[in-house]
């Protein structure tokens, strides 16, 4: 019988080739880009009148449904706010496993509880951007006030006019979620803007 396994391909397979580019000084690159396709992403969308109950159910299972603009971490699973009535659960697991784990607190039938779970592990691309020049770089693309985007805050906004979710995971690191079809374009934009600081694809 034929081998029927399929190998996944990153949307940045050709744009994120390892190496240093631009004005990298002795102090190292100003910005580092990392493909975080090791993370699975499942959106949790909850009807407004069911959010309190959903929060309770998730908390019972050790997860959280954080307020607007915030992220909450519990073990390997982080749940970040991403849009109106919508959160994204992020974990270094297989998508199906994350999906099942999130469905469990809703008795395996989230739809009956006003909750929609949707796997977006391929639909959203997770790009990690870090380095001392992170904020200077982001300011060239996003209109949000980066002073207010503190660690574990999230924002639904745009980079170079493409819709993105920004999650600051550390003072000098963000996880940027962008629609897969725009991933390469967004990366190329950020790479060009990072030339003056020097960047590393890693």
């Amino acid at each position, binding site marked *: 019988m034929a081998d029927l396994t399929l190998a996944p391909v990153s949307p940045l397979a050709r744009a994120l080739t390892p190496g240093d580019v631009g004005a990298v000084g002795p102090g190292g690159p100003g910005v580092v880009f990392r493909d975080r396709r090791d993370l699975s992403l499942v959106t949790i969308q909850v009807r*407004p009148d069911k959010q309190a109950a959903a929060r309770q159910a998730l908390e019972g299972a050790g997860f959280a449904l954080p307020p*607007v*603009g915030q992220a909450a971490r519990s073990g390997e699973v982080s749940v970040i706010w*991403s*849009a*109106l009535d919508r959160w994204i659960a992020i974990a270094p697991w297989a998508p199906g496993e994350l999906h099942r784990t999130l469905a469990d607190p809703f008795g395996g039938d989230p739809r009956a509880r006003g909750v929609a779970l949707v796997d977006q592990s391929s639909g959203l691309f997770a790009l990690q951007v870090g380095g001392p020049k992170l904020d200077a770089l982001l300011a060239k693309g996003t*209109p*949000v006030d980066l002073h207010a985007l503190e660690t574990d805050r999230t*924002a*639904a*906004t*745009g980079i170079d*006019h493409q*819709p993105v979710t920004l999650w600051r995971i550390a003072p000098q690191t963000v996880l940027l979620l962008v629609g897969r079809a725009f991933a390469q374009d967004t990366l190329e934009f950020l790479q060009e803007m990072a030339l003056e600081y020097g960047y590393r694809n890693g």
Partner: protein
Amino acid sequence: MRIPCPVCGARPSEEFTYRGDARPVRPPMDSSDQGAWVDYLFFRDDERGRIKEQWQHTGGCRAWIVVDRDTATHAVHGSELARDAAEGGQA
């Protein structure tokens, strides 16, 4: 212009998509009154001054919102989610 998204806070208007005047009320379901539909869809007062407008935060949280804006000065006096406005207003 900065538009205060009730969810995300103030953002530049470039993140939003404009729909139009929020005041015309959609005829109820199953209404077949053609005149009412024509009024709802096509007739606008185009006023100078404060009006309510529908915008969607397409470059952000995707919420449909109703913005209280002055067409003469561009001053924005507030905003709310369209679904809240629907509950309070037209239903």
